[in-house]
């Protein structure tokens, strides 16, 4: 099993509903967020191009954060989802420094926190992650890459896509449809 997510940059309008849904679903402490929206403007007026991306942890297959964690708190869970076990985390910050996407943050309670793909609270119950299910333009696809009929497999088969900083060698599992 290999969980992955695809975000359609052509459908995303940057409304930030995914951010609010995540904060509500996962009790993200006030002032923090596990996902965010990036807007890239390219060109010179009037020839402008815009790309909007809803970003979060890339759940990399070769995660620098899992590699550098001294206690094993950062680990690969079911389907390759990268998770942090709070009671094993010492809050040393190594994983935060190691993430090229700056996807992690220190939770006010001390441990390091990040996107979980809603693995335990939703995905294991057969639901989509909160950000995916709430998206008003339905621009996000989630599922198992090993299953050819999952929404994410289907959309990646038919569309052009990219990942973020593939040259960092992390093999990210968050895909952006172009």
């Amino acid at each position, binding site marked *: 099993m290999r969980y992955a997510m695809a975000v359609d940059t052509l459908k995303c309008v940057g409304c930030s509903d995914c951010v609010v849904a995540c904060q509500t679903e996962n009790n993200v402490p006030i002032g923090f967020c596990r996902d965010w929206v990036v807007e890239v403007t390219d060109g010179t007026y009037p020839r402008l191009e815009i790309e909007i991306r809803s970003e979060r942890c890339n759940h990399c297959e070769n995660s620098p954060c899992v590699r550098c964690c001294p206690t094993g708190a950062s680990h690969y869970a079911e389907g390759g989802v990268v998770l942090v076990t709070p009671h094993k985390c010492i809050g040393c910050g190594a994983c935060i420094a190691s993430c090229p996407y*700056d996807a992690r943050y220190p939770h006010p309670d001390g441990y390091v926190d990040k996107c979980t793909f809603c693995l335990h609270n939703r995905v294991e119950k057969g639901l989509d992650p909160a950000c995916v299910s709430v998206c008003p333009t339905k621009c996000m696809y989630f599922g198992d890459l090993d299953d050819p009929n999952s929404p994410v497999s289907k959309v990646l088969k038919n569309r052009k896509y990219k990942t973020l900083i593939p040259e960092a060698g992390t093999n990210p599992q968050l895909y952006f449809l172009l």
Partner: protein
Amino acid sequence: MKEEIIVSGRLNHLIDPQLHIWHWHIPLYLFLGGLAAGILFFAALYTILGKEKEYPTAVKLAPFLTPALLSIGLLALFLDLNHKLYFWQLYTTLRLESPMSWGAWTLMVVTPASIVWCALHIRELFPNWDWKFNWLKAVETFFNQYKQHLAWVLLISSLILGVYTGILFSAFNARPLWNTSILGPLFLTSGLSTGAAAIVLMSKKASERHNFARIDLMLIGIELFLIVHMFMGFLASTQVHIEAAHLFLGGPYTVPFWLFVVMLGLVIPALLEFLELRGFHMPYFIAPVLVILGGLIFRFIIAYAGQASRWLY
């Protein structure tokens, strides 16, 4: 023109707008660890070579600093943790992939070994020292028998400690400035250099001071070579590495680095030591003090500048 902004207002504390997860604790610890590693390395080396009599400060006196240096360093590391009460989780596992893990275990070897080393030489400081308890005397006798073995343990573990202070940074490919394998040898050399400088400062014997000034001069030469090498590597690498090098070549860290680390911390003390060895007499403490301060500032600059360097996408 390409402009990239986070429109959902992400402002995660210590991450945005620029990563600042590590403050003064980590560079201070890396400096103290390197200094302790340097002192212990020379103590072990001259014990193994059988030169305790020629270099009494290096073998018997300077190591008394190391338990304190390591303890302060460990305290700084502890203060840096955000989930402090779980620090013991470090010692429930050994993960060779994680420099922080095997570094923590190295400290668990070096720190007790340095304390034992001091205990074996306590009579250098207090000639009438009495251990009071018989079992402590037995422990002392035991380690005295195996002093050469202990020296070997210290020699190897101090080298690992010294090189680890650099590898800790170089293992992070997310921060291009840190992501160079030169950083391990560079921090090791710098640690040995500050260790030699500390011995020069403490020694009352002219021949010993001269020997360590000569060693320090050689180490400074290697350090300068490694620094030039590091920048050559960056400038011949990818865009993010070139940008990382430019933090020091015209960017915000240019003046602190070239003035305080390279000039005041390496070039000027090297000149002073060279003149001293050539027979020009000057206050001998200036060069080692500059070397030690330079080593401290070097750690701070690398720690802070590294967090300012990043991949762009």
